[in-house]
């Protein structure tokens, strides 16, 4: 945390993203966006050895 604090200034109240009914902290929003990015990447990124396995079967 101290290392992160050296990079990001954490000495302030939490920041929130608000859009109509939606109210979410920036920290949680970043995690959700990261999960979506990792999910999409997992679907499209080539898996090592996949072509070989398909060829074997």
């Amino acid at each position, binding site marked *: *945390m101290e290392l992160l604090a050296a990079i990001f200034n954490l000495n302030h109240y939490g920041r929130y993203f608000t859009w109509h009914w939606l109210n979410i902290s920036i920290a949680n929003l970043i*995690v959700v966006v*990261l*999960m979506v990015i*990792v*999910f999409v*990447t*997992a*679907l499209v*990124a080539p*898996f090592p*050895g*996949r072509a070989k*396995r*398909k060829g*074997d*079967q």
Partner: protein
Amino acid sequence: MSTEIDRQWTTRTRKRMVSAFPAEKLLPDTQPSYVASWIYVFGVTTLASLAMVILTGCILSIRGPVWWHQSSEGHFVNSLHLWSVEVFFFAMVIHLWGKYFMAAWRGKRAMTWITGAVTFLVSIGAAFTGYLSQSNFDSQWISTQAKDGINSTGIGAYFNVLNLGQMLMWHIVLLPLGAVVLTALHVVLVRYRGVVPPFEESSKS
């Protein structure tokens, strides 16, 4: 004609278990080719992080709050516990999305889906009681913020978020036990029914 030994419940249970779970099914050598995709790694990532959560939780239980609040080693293990939980939920949510869009309940896998979903709910309870068990101002703040919501559901008399002892017991005994037993059942069901194939593989067969 069946003998007396054949009729024993131990004999019948053993025969049933051996027929349902032969060794090659419990620990298979290979998986179908469609499992070679990154989307299939998030289940095992969730399992690995759960193992780390339990391990670090056991160390925190042995050493106690003064240690995790005041020593460098305690801070380190406390942080490992927190970040293992972050990875656990991160991977579990992606695992859930992947299985949802695969309709992973196909092929008589409804119980596999249900045990996974219930494990997710139990884990949320475990994480929540973990926040309440920190024994610092953060846990006090969270408990006072949560009490009205919990009391409005009517379960406040049995699940009192202001009772640190009760929340700690839920966090270190009941909920981890539930999560681990359900996870074991979930994995056994995955082994029993096999990994759900993609839609195109199902339509071929």
